[in-house]
């Protein structure tokens, strides 16, 4: 998740260091560098472990040196794909559906709500916003069981909707959208559009929305990652293993009783594969963040 920050423009040292100039030679700041390196190692070691462990066959997993690559990656992959008729790929597709549709809907709802909260004055506005703010502080985990009870009242437990609907409304996404809309959409632009005769919906659609895209992309990505990684909500909501997302599915591979050999190699390979879409998504969507550095409609 360290990739969420947009890459800062790189500032390299002056191309031609002038000898004997007044400027002091750049000193390497050892303490921060060391701390950052430590942080990087801390974050990357588990990743390296997953990558190397996924290449090991069952024989090699606990016997060879931890970070030495093994020879079993393709076998693991084939075994994972054929496990119970390829149910792993069903889980991946489910995850993609939950995370993709959920994040898209969530970004849409957040965008509309955030824009309304930022640009319209109406009674109860601050109350609504304060309630949302309280929602930001509430860890989603505590809501899983009440949401389950609500969903079963509605007859939706153990359906795709039971996982999708709770992820559509994201207090954090709305909060972010409001802040973003406030900062990115100048009131002058809204006024100018109104003067030009744009109706409210068209104003939002053609003027405000394009300006909010970078913010909405952020909301989309946050929600996508949150839903993709979510475990407890789908674990409680779903009973049918063909509706499981990949997190719950992999967990069920580990917990299948003592009579069967644990499927460590499959779980590790499955975990590695399940991270790839997230990485691809981040790399693919990074460019949308940069847009907001260039855009600007009002000279101030």
């Amino acid at each position, binding site marked *: 998740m360290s990739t969420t920050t947009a890459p800062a423009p790189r500032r390299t040292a002056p191309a031609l260091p002038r000898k004997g100039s007044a400027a002091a030679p750049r000193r390497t700041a050892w303490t921060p560098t060391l701390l950052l390196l430590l942080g990087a190692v801390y974050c990357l070691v588990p990743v390296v472990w997953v990558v190397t462990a996924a290449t090991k066959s*069952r*024989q090699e*997993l*606990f*016997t060879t040196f931890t970070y030495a690559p093994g020879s079993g990656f393709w076998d693991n992959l084939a075994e994972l794909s054929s496990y*119970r008729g390829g149910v792993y790929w069903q889980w991946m597709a489910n995850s993609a559906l939950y995370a993709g549709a959920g994040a898209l809907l969530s970004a849409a709802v957040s965008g509309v709500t955030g824009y309304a909260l930022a640009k*319209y004055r*109406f009674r109860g506005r601050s109350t609504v916003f304060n309630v949302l703010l309280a929602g930001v502080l509430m860890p989603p985990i505590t809501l899983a*069981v009440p949401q*389950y*009870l609500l969903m*079963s*009242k*509605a*007859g*939706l*437990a*153990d*359906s*795709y*909707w039971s996982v999708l*609907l709770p992820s559509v409304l994201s207090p954090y996404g709305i909060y972010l959208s409001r802040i973003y809309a406030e900062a990115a959409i100048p009131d002058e632009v809204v006024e100018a559009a109104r003067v030009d005769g744009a*109706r*409210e*919906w068209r104003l939002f659609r053609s003027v405000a929305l394009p300006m909010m895209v970078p913010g909405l992309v952020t909301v989309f990505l946050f929600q996508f990652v949150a839903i993709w990684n979510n475990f407890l909500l789908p*674990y*409680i909501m779903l*009973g*049918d*293993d063909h509706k499981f997302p990949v997190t*719950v599915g992999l*967990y*069920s591979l*580990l*917990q*299948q*009783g*003592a*009579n*069967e*050999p*644990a*499927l*460590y190699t499959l779980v590790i390979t499955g975990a590695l594969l399940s991270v790839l879409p997230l990485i691809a998504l981040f790399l693919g969507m990074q460019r949308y963040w940069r847009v907001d550095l260039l855009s600007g409609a009002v000279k101030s």
Partner: protein
Amino acid sequence: MHRRLALAAAAALCGTLVLSACSSDGGSGDAAKAASGPVKLTFWSWAPNMDKVAEVWNKAHPDVQVSVLKQAGGDDLVTKTITAAKAGNAPDLIQAEYQALPTLVSNDVLADIAKQAGDAKSQFADGVWKQVTLGSDAVYAIPEDTAPLAFYYRQDLFEQYGLKVPTTWDEFAATARALKQQAPDKSLTTFSANDPGLFAGLAQQAGAAWWTTSGESWKVAIDDPATKKVADFWSGLVKDGAVDNQPMYTPAWSKALNDGTQVGWVSAVWAPGVLTSSAPDTKGKWAMAPLPQWESGASVTGSWGGSATGVTTGAVKSGHAEAAAKFATWLNTDPEALAALVQQVNVYPAATSAQTGSLLSAAPEFFADQPDFYARAAEIAKGTAPAAWGPNVNVAYSAFKDAFGKAAQDKGDFGAALSAMQRSTVEDLKKNGFQVG
């Protein structure tokens, strides 16, 4: 005005969402509609290939169709099942470990199927059957698999160090010390504070009955003399460094089993499956022996795991109890079902007829050198001491992990840890409104 329009649009959008949501839901509505068609039962199980066993049933019983929804097993599943039952979404049938049965019964998840399945009693050992009746006249589940404890050891290393297979716990301690003397880097086994199930099994062997009822009140005897004897025994071994104190089921533990740093393992009849994945290089080098005894010449053992098939109160409400109980009985007593269970699901069946029959005539592949593996296992299983579970096993188990985890790490006093476990279990029972005598 525009705003009102937007609101209306939003309301309409929500409406369609809810509508389409309702129409896509096929779970709970079907049960009522299907009254005329075949009865559809759902079965939560964590065992792989259970769906294939259900297929055998479905082919022979077109009027009752069972679909297996594979779950992740373990303690979390108990919580999930209870939550689902509270919300009215419980499946018709569940697989549950024996120690979870009282919890499920006290939460009104499991139905009494004594009327439909009481006849199955003769197929099971008394100690096993007692676990599904909870000592009452009711029957809350049909035993599926059992897991009697045994002692597994590395034949080749025992020979190399001139060790004899211990038949009593005294000999076990002597063997552990003798091995340490010859090879200080090796251990006979480890005391793992992560596995309360094993400790419970060892206590059962010594004669402990942790939860008992008299009238309406519960009695908790986790710190009874029998369990104390077991705790002190392992405490002594850990303190002297005669056995290891690292937890099981970690990569380090697998490595130690695989490279022979640990030359033995007190485990249950399912051990070959674990060894296959954790210690692949040691294939054919292991052997199983009866669990060491407290009194020489005895043949008592405990259990570590095992599960049963239960019918939920939800199935009773939807009128499916009869069909569900029939399936549960068929699954665990019918020869065809037992064959499928053994061959496809790899369980050690609870039904006594299947333990000695032709189903289990061949030893597990990993134990090819011990062709009479299952004959011995059946012999060991005969001496399984009854287990006595209560409604808050999960609390006792987590107290075990906390207290014994610390004691094992510090090589400290297990007696104090046992008292702590007793205390938290009793306190939890009282807090939850049970009478404790």
